[in-house]
C-alpha cells in the first residue's frame, strides 16, 4: 500500500519579514491512515496542507510521500477545499473525468471510471447535468469523485464540509472515511470541528498558533463505522477539549455550525 507521508521539520513564512506561520512541523502518517489536523482559525492548517500537496513550497524542511520529496502538485495526492470549485461550463461527468483527460486517458476509460465513481458517490443520475444545478452537498460529492478519479494514494481535505448543513455533512463525513478505508487511501483532514475529527480519523494532531505547531497527538481507537454518542467517542472528545484548553486564544473562533462542539466552545 502506498501513500505514506512524512513531514520533516517544515517551517514557513510568506516572506522574510512576515511572521512565522509554521515552525518545525514533524508528522508522519502511515499509508492508509486517516489523520486530522485540528486547530484554531489562522494557526496554519491550510498552509501546512498546501505544503503537503506541493501547491506551496515550504520555506524550510520538506515533505516526502512514499519516500520521495514533494516538489510540485500531482494527481496522486489530491486536495479538496471548502468550496467544491467545480468547472461550471462542464457537466458533472466532465468535471469528474478532468484529471484523467489531463493524463491523456481514452474516452472509453474516462467514461468507465466516471460512471463507477458517480455510482460510488450516489450521483449517477446527474452525470449529464450542469454542475451549477447541484446542491452544495452534491457539488462536494462531485469534487470528491473528481479527486478520486486519478486513483490517488492520498486525499488532502481542507475543511471540505464546513459550508454544508449538519445532515449533509454527517453523511459525507461517514462516506469519505469509508471510501478512504475501503480504497486504502491516506487521508489528511483539516478541520476545526472536534466531532468531525473524532468521527473521521485514526489520529488527531492538535495545532497551536504563533507560530503554528503541533502540540498534541491523540489516538482515536474507536471501531469503524463510528457512532456519535458512543462512550469512547465522548471520552476522546473530552481528551481533545482538554488539549485545546492549553491553546492560546487570541481571537474568537468562528463557529460555523452554530451550537455544535467546536474548538471555540472548549474555551467558553
Amino acid at each position, binding site marked *: 500500500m502506498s501513500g505514506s507521508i512524512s513531514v520533516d521539520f517544515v517551517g514557513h513564512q510568506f516572506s522574510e519579514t512576515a511572521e512565522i506561520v509554521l515552525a518545525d512541523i514533524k508528522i508522519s502518517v502511515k499509508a492508509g491512515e486517516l489523520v486530522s489536523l485540528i486547530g484554531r482559525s489562522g494557526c496554519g492548517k491550510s498552509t501546512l496542507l498546501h505544503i503537503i500537496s506541493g501547491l506551496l513550497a515550504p520555506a524550510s524542511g520538506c515533505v516526502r510521500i512514499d519516500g520521495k520529496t514533494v516538489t510540485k*502538485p500531482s*494527481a496522486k495526492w*489530491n486536495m479538496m*477545499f471548502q468550496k467544491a*470549485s467545480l*468547472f461550471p*461550463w*462542464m457537466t458533472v461527468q466532465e468535471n469528474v473525468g478532468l484529471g484523467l*483527460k*489531463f493524463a491523456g486517458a481514452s474516452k472509453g476509460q474516462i467514461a468507465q471510471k466516471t460512471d463507477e465513481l458517480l455510482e460510488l458517490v450516489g450521483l449517477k443520475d446527474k452525470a449529464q447535468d450542469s454542475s451549477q444545478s447541484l446542491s452544495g452537498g452534491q457539488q462536494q460529492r462531485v469534487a470528491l469523485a473528481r479527486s478520486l478519479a486519478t486513483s490517488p494514494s492520498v486525499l488532502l481535505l481542507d475543511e471540505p464540509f464546513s459550508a454544508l448543513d449538519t445532515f449533509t455533512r454527517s453523511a459525507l463525513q461517514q462516506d469519505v472515511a469509508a471510501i478512504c478505508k475501503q480504497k486504502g487511501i491516506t487521508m489528511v483532514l483539516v478541520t476545526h470541528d472536534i466531532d468531525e475529527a473524532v468521527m473521521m480519523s485514526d489520529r488527531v494532531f492538535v495545532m497551536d498558533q504563533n507560530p503554528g505547531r503541533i502540540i498534541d497527538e491523540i489516538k482515536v481507537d474507536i471501531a469503524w463505522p463510528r457512532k456519535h454518542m458512543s462512550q469512547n467517542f465522548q471520552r476522546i472528545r473530552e481528551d481533545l477539549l482538554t488539549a485545546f484548553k492549553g491553546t492560546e486564544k487570541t481571537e474568537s473562533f468562528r463557529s460555523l455550525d452554530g451550537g455544535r462542539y467546536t474548538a471555540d466552545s472548549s474555551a467558553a
Partner: protein
Amino acid sequence: MSQVASGAEIVEGPRLSARSVVSEFLSKYGYPLVGIMILLAVWWFGGWLIASDDDLSAFADFAPGPTFAALIDLIRSGDLTQTIISSLFRVGAGLLWGFVIGVPVGILIGYVLVAMRVANVPFQFLRMISPLAWMPIAVLAFETWDSAIIFLIVMATVWPIMFSTSHGVKRIDPSWFKVAKNLGASGTQMVHQIIMPAIMSDVMAGVRLAVGVAWVVLVPAEYLGVTSGLGYAINDARDTLAYDTLAAIVLVIGVIGYLLDTVCGVLVSRFNWHQND
C-alpha cells in the same frame, strides 16, 4: 418567460396556457414588428414632408417606395453582393487582427498585475482616440487602401476585445487554477481546458462590441480611396445623385449590422456559463 408560462399552465389549466402562448408570440414577434412599422411610418412621413417641400423635392427618392425599388434593382444586378463581400472582408480581417492581438494581450493584463498597471494608462489613452483619427497615418503607413482601412478597423476592434478578455480573466476563480494544477494540468491544458472556456463568454461579449464599432467605422473608412464596399457605394450614389440607391444602401448597412449583432449575441449566450448574466 417560458418557465413562468408553463408554471401557470399546471395551476390554471389549458385556457391560460393558450393565452400565454399568444403573449409569448406577441413579445417575440409582435412588439418588434410594431417597432419596425413605426420606423417605416416615420420614414414614409419624412419622405412625404421632403416631397411636399419645393426646395427639397429633388431628394424625394429617399422615401420608402423608391428606396425599395432601388434595392430590388441592386440585388438583381448582382452589384450589391460584391459590395457587401468587399465590406465584410475588411471588417472580418480587422476583427481577426483585433482578436489575434486583443485576446493574448487581454489575458496578459488580466493575469499579470504588473502588466495591467503598466498598460492601463497608455491603453485607456489610445482607446479614447477615434479610429478615424488614425486615417492620415494609416494612409501614410500602408501601401494599399485596403490595408489602411483594415488598420482603422483593428484600431476600433482591438480595445473592446482586449478589455473584455482581461475582465474575463480577472473573473476566473483562483481556486480553479489550484484544482487544475492538482489534477495534473500542463501549461497548455490550463490554457485550453480552463482559461479559454472560462473567459470565452467575456471574449465574445468583447467581439460583439467590436463588431458594432467596426461596422460603424467601416463606412467612413471606405470613403477613402477604395472603389468597392458599402461606404464607397454611398459616396458613389451621392456623386451620381442616385438618392434612392443611397437610401437602399443605408438600409442594407442597417440590416447587415443588425444581423451581425444577432449572430454575436447568439455566440455570447452559446459560450455563457454565468448563471446570473
